[in-house]
């Protein structure tokens, strides 16, 4: 079944806190924050929900500038922010519960933030002693 198109509103980083406040005050629930890489640029998408309708906010991001955390507004955002920080290497400032890179510990740092998968796989040489 064909579902309706999803509209994504793109805003600037500086608008983020304000916009999220607006959503919060309108009684929206934070659904998720996701991140994707476009070439060298990243985009963060904040998804909110009210009455079963999803609304999306999108901001551009990169690995240098830190994004203000919305965990003061939606406490629950700390899981997503920590996750993105660990997987993409995008810094966040002011996360309520900051794991400082230990939320998801990976064998390669920021696996999603690097263009190529670096497979650090050793050959299975000495399997049995």
């Amino acid at each position: 079944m064909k579902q309706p198109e999803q509209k994504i509103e793109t805003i600037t980083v500086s608008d983020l806190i304000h916009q999220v406040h607006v959503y919060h005050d309108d009684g929206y629930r934070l659904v998720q924050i996701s991140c994707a890489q476009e070439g060298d640029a990243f985009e963060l998408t904040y998804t909110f929900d009210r009455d079963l309708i999803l609304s999306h906010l999108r901001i551009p991001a990169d690995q240098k500038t830190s994004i203000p955390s919305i965990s003061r507004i939606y406490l629950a955002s700390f899981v997503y922010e920590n996750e993105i920080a660990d997987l993409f290497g995008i810094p966040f400032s002011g996360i309520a519960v900051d794991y400082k890179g230990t939320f998801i510990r990976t064998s390669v740092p920021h696996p999603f933030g690097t263009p190529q998968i670096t497979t650090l796989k050793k050959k299975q040489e000495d399997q049995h002693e």
Partner: protein
Amino acid sequence: MELLIFLILFPLLIAGLLAVIQAEHVRRAVVISGAVLVGIASLVALAFSVTSQAVFYSVPVNNIGILVFIGDILISGYIIFVSLKARQYVVTGITVIQLILLCAVEYLALTNHAHIPELFSDQLSGIMSAIIGVIGGLICVYALGYMREYHAEHPDRPDTRPRFFGIMFLFLSAMFGIIFSNNLLWLFFFWEITTLCSYLLIRYPNTDEAIKNAFRALLFNLIGGACIPIAFLVILLTGESELIGLHELVSAGPGLALIPAGLIAVAGLAKSAQFPFSSWLVGAMVAPTPVSALLHSSTMVKAGVYIIARFAPVFEGELIGILIALIGGITFLAASAIAISQSNAKKVLAYSTIANLGLIVACCGVGTAEGLWAAILLIIFHAIAKSLLFLSVGTVEHQIHSRNIEDMSGLVTKMPRITMMILIGIAGMFLAPFGMLISKWASLHAFVESVPPFGILLVIIIAYGSGITAFFWAKWMGKLIAVGEPQQKDESHIPGSEKSILYILSALTIVVCFGFPVISWYLIEPWLLTMYQSVTELISLSNIEIMFMMLFLVLIMPFSLARFTRSATRVPRYLCGIPESETMVFTGSCGIKREIELSNYYLDTIFCEKRISRISVGIGIFLIVLILNIIIVGGGL
């Protein structure tokens, strides 16, 4: 019996000497020689009491009664002086009342003079004197080393050690006085001295808290003490002035003796820190540890239970006795329960003292021969094990600079010897073949047969209490032997005197466990026989055998330890799969390195100190008022 005089006066002499000696090594010599002499003399007194019947002794000095009276006035005067200075007007008031009562007593006594021997000694006195002499002496010697370190640690506090040791020996002297007095007026005099001494010792650190607690101790003991002159009045007013003799009073039987005995027992309750009076003993913990040891094990509180034990035969089957026993029972239960919620080692010891005294009081209160037998055994075992515990905790305190049980974790690797001794002490307090358990066994036997419904009530109380005691002792033991990371063994800083005293006390704990049948046969049973005309077999031979078997098992077990430590390969402890990055440390959430910390349970939601003590103080006051009511009604009738 010049020995009795010697035991009373000799410590007094030493006390006087110590008060003036300033040089430390001289003091040392005096204390040690004094303690040894007192100890030997007390043992001689014990030995005499084994063979002989009660001996009575009149002091061949004329008008000595007046001297005692003057002494009483001096004590009261001093108390009034200090209390006024510290604005403790309640204390002043009670002292004044006491003084007035005493004057009345003295007036009556002078007009109605009866000649009774002032001193006496029987098996109970012998046992008590041995406890006071040996354990008290050991504590004094221990204090030598302890106080030196104490002042090194607290440079801010005034170093008045000469006075301190003087008071310690004065205390011993007064205790001997109490246990050898036959004339109750004498007894009261010594009684007041101990009250005063305890006040002075508790305020020794001279901090605000210490002073406050010292006055609390003074107040409660004075309130209790005030009952004694009333008892005298009752005795004298009934006209039988020779009943002012302890022995005479007890043998006069419940009819005449019950009311004075009840009143004196109330004083005893206060002194032995039963609810509602118990808080002074807990407050007394601010004093240096040897003081606590002295107050808790051989003196002070023991004076309280001693006097109740003396009157126990009077209480047999009487309502007053039952109420006293109930106070003891409640105290046992409540104090044990509170001990669970304490992490300060000395407080745990304090509450457990209160609890054990409660048990003793309960045994005395029912007043049967069996009960008394259990009570006396309890007094003996408790004195030894408690002093051992206090002193070893004091030693540990100086080594690890904390009284907190939590900080003693893994002590077994740091100070194996001291830990062994604490373990022996604790085992002595609650584990099966050791002392207290024998007594608990005996008291259960005693209660179940006495005064039908109330005896069972006490049994139920003990049943609950023994579970509770097991909890807090066992968790302490566990803390001592739980080894996180083996620490460097380091016992060299402990002064030799302290160590040897601890050795002696641990040895005594075990010797007494083995020797209790002997004590029972040669001392307690003969004494009971004089008090009660017939005494049934108190503990059967087969049970003694079983206890010995257990004791042997417990004692030989440690020899297998080596075998087990050798045979196992070491593996890390189970931390849900998280490896220890170094011993006891694992990396937890957020990458934080966490050290494993395992404290005991204090269950303070259930065993909340405040709530339990409030409730039990309430019950205690109720029961005391009940006792006094009965006395007033009984006296009026």
